[in-house]
């Protein structure tokens, strides 16, 4: 009986550790995305389907810790507020940007410049293009 209970306790502890590790992992994404409170990211470049992209070059996304993101369009001076949510799927961090959909989110370093990359879903079909948005810190 004691053996069964101790096995269950160890099992629960392992589950707790797994969830905790995942939450810790996501926390790092939260910190880099919002810099603790809010952070503006400017779209620097788009790879592959720049004509079909949902974000335009020069657009600024202001991520707030309150799960809101303000999208500024410099050309039209439009401002739109949407919600953002972070999650994990198969070892990849995903961000949900409301109507803009789900994107894989990564923080990268290239030539000593820090980038945030949003990439739409990779599918097995080789003819399905993947668009990557590279953002740089705006302030």
């Amino acid at each position, binding site marked *: 009986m004691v053996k069964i209970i101790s096995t269950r306790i160890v099992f629960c502890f392992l589950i707790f550790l797994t969830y905790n590790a995942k939450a810790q992992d996501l926390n790092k994404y939260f910190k*880099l995305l919002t810099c603790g409170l809010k952070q503006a990211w400017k779209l620097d470049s788009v790879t592959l389907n720049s004509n079909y992209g949902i974000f335009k070059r020069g657009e600024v996304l202001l991520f707030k810790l309150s799960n809101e993101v303000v999208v500024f369009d410099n050309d039209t001076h439009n401002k739109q507020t949407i919600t953002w949510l972070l999650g994990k799927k198969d*070892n990849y961090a995903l961000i949900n940007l409301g109507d803009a959909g789900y994107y894989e989110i*990564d*923080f*990268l370093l*290239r030539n000593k410049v820090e980038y945030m990359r949003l*990439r739409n879903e*990779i*599918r*097995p079909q080789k003819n399905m293009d993947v668009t990557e948005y590279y953002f740089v810190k705006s302030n």
Partner: protein
Amino acid sequence: MKSAKPITTKKNFLKIFICLIAALSLIFTLIAWFNSRQNGNEFKAKEISAYKKLDLLVAKIITTTDPDSLVNYTKIFNRALFEAQTSSFQDSVISLSMRRFTFELNDKLHGIVNLLDSGRFERTGQSIIRTCAAHISSLPAN
């Protein structure tokens, strides 16, 4: 009694004709089955060979430290992947892993460092090797 003889001959002829058709269709079916089996075996052998080749290349790519070797292996890998995709790839899990790996490889070639997941390139490669091995072992034996 005399008129019954041609009817019996006709019946016999019909029986022989039906038997002949049945025998011919059986022979054709057997030939078709044998050919399809042979084609299936050839296709499977080709598929296994493609997976093993890609496995080996992925292993070389993720373990190499020399940038020139990385570029060379990448060229060979891309060619092998293209050939495999046009001829043998059926499994969507492997196709997805391969596609993902090409993106990670592209990052590596461009000197991009993932700040929160630095080991992703190697992990994606290892995942392909595991998936391919599992797929090869799951293929039915002859």
